[in-house]
């Protein structure tokens, strides 16, 4: 039992040979029923029963009848339900598709462009006449050309290749920093929530204190003073710094979830069978709190990416030869009056990505957490 991933619904549905769920054995175990109440008669499913998502609310045998011969509906899980609700939300689906396209393009795009036109993100043309900024879809002689769909920058580099390469870094910073914040936030929040008492007070008071700190200033100081040694080191510094400052809300969410879960029977059962505290927290409590965590993580990604862009824009984040959407925008802004495409393409790609991620996050929240829904 303790080795299994704990189920979403406290009462387990164990599929029998025909693959139809029956109620878990433990439910009718006389040892677990309150004294004085006779054990409930075993409920046996038959063809024609509608299977309840929450077996404990079923009234009895053949709870809800559907006409004979109709197909038995498979039990829906929380995740399946959420997925269905998500697919009904048009904006969230739009967000999902756009994010998928941009992610695929960032991963595969630079390779394809290199095959097609020979340009890499840092290829500066050998012919010095080409080392200047051409408008989108324009050949050096002013005629139409597909070579540079987004034009070139002041050094003659292909902007599309640079935007896609920047997408790799921006998305990586978003994902990895969110992962860092997840690890810290979940550990912190789950520990505080499960242990409670003085530990909880201390851990959450620290979170309260950190909440009020204008942390972006400290991140600026950190990057300005420790950065600038090597471009790769700078990116790692970004991962760490942004992850280290964005776990606070995550800790609060996880703590709330854990507090509401920790008095349920499955935790008691785990404790009674001698499962260690860390194992209870990470094997039993955390998987059950995943819904809100996923929602908040989805919304953390765009906010971290925005912070990364902001720092790169100030010249403190991603540095040459690497590029990110923020650093590309920063280069673009210097030439905005003459070569506006240098700013507009990276800027709009980034805004579109953040826009889609935010919609996806909102949609996920509505789907996974109907009570938290903002109507």
């Amino acid at each position: 039992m303790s080795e299994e991933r704990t189920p979403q619904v406290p009462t387990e549905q164990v599929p029998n040979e025909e693959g139809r769920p029956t109620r878990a054995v433990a439910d009718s175990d006389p040892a677990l029923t309150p004294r004085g109440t006779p054990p409930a008669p075993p409920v046996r499913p038959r063809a024609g029963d509608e299977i309840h998502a929450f077996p404990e609310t079923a009234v009895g045998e053949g709870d809800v009848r559907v006409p004979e011969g109709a197909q038995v509906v498979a039990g829906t899980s929380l995740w399946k339900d959420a997925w269905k609700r998500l697919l009904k939300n048009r904006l969230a689906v739009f967000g999902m598709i756009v994010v998928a396209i941009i992610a695929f393009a960032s991963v595969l795009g630079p390779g394809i462009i290199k095959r097609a036109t020979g340009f890499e993100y840092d290829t500066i043309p050998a012919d010095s006449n080409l080392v200047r900024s051409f408008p989108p879809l324009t050949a050096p002689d002013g005629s139409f050309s597909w070579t540079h769909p987004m034009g070139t920058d002041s050094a003659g580099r292909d902007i599309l290749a640079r935007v896609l390469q920047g997408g790799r870094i921006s998305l990586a910073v978003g994902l990895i920093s969110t992962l860092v914040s997840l690890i810290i936030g979940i550990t912190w929040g789950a520990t505080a929530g499960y242990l409670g008492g003085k530990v909880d007070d201390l851990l959450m008071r620290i979170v309260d204190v950190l909440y009020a700190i204008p942390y972006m200033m400290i991140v600026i100081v950190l990057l300005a003073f420790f950065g600038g040694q090597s471009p790769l080191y700078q990116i790692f510094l970004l991962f760490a710094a942004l992850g280290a400052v964005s776990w606070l809300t995550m800790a609060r969410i996880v703590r709330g979830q854990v507090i509401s879960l920790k008095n349920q029977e499955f935790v008691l059962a785990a404790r009674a069978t001698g499962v260690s505290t860390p194992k209870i927290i990470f094997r039993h409590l955390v998987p059950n709190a995943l819904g809100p965590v996923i929602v908040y993580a989805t919304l953390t990604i765009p906010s971290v990416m925005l912070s990364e862009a902001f720092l790169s824009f100030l010249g403190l984040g991603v540095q040459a030869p690497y590029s990110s959407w923020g650093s590309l925008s920063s280069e673009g802004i210097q030439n905005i009056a003459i070569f506006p495409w240098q700013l507009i393409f990276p800027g709009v790609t980034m805004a579109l990505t953040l826009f889609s991620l935010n919609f996806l996050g909102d949609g996920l929240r509505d789907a996974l957490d109907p009570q938290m829904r903002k109507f």
Partner: protein
Amino acid sequence: MFRFIVRRLIVTVPMVLIVITLTWGLIRLAPGNFYSTDKKLPPAIEKNIRAKYGLDQPWYVQYGRMMGNIVRLDFGNSLKYETETVNDILKRTLPVSATLGVLAYLIALVVGILFGTLAALKPNSKLDYVSMALAMLGISLPNFVLGPILVLLFSLSLYWLPPARWNGFPSWNLVLPVLTLSAIYMAYIARLTRAGMLEVLRSDYIRTARAKGLSERQVVMRHALRGGLLPVISFTGPALAILITGTVVVEKIFAMPGLGNYFLNANLNRDEPLIIGIVAFISITVLIFNLLVDIAYAYVDPRIRY
């Protein structure tokens, strides 16, 4: 109430200390020195510089001296702008940033509350969808993209507004930076107002207000807004934090001589007294604001007692 304020102030002081200590520690642990940026100095000169700035003392003496200065609100001289003290610079730059920030927040409050309320009054209408999509755009569009696009449009193409530079308080130069800065607040406030109002509009006391025959206008303006705006009030705290990052970018884009711009340059110049001064000033301001927000909250919401 009084006890609450005192308790909050007691928590506030260590918070400011933590921020300053963290900043100071980062600066001191970082490799290199503010004077060693270009070529290597002769040892005698280096020794003199270190003595002049107290760098030859043990770290706890330096730390104690810095903290003593902060308690007396005297942050010393800037290393870069040698003729000015940090306090002079704060006095000079604060009005610029405060003007931008206050104007941006006021505009965002008016527009955000207006559209948030209208959207909540007719959920799922066209106006609701359009204003919420715009709000999402406002949250997603980085201000360093929005700002230059506005400049491109209104200054470099239409020639309606000046593109940059500070020109005193009532001036056309303020329009574009204030708009750029307020976009994200507007978006957040509209979303918060809509969510808050939707919740309040379904509550019993609104039904009572309607039942006793008040006009819809009175129901919304006198009863619903008061409850519906609670999330907006509590947003004011985090808003200040966004303002700080926002002003750094906006002041850089529009070449404004504000606090944010100076903070960024101080970091690039390793101007320690100026960094510490600005960090201390901003953390104190943020924490006082948070306290004021909590007090305001108690006044608006009669259910909250401290």
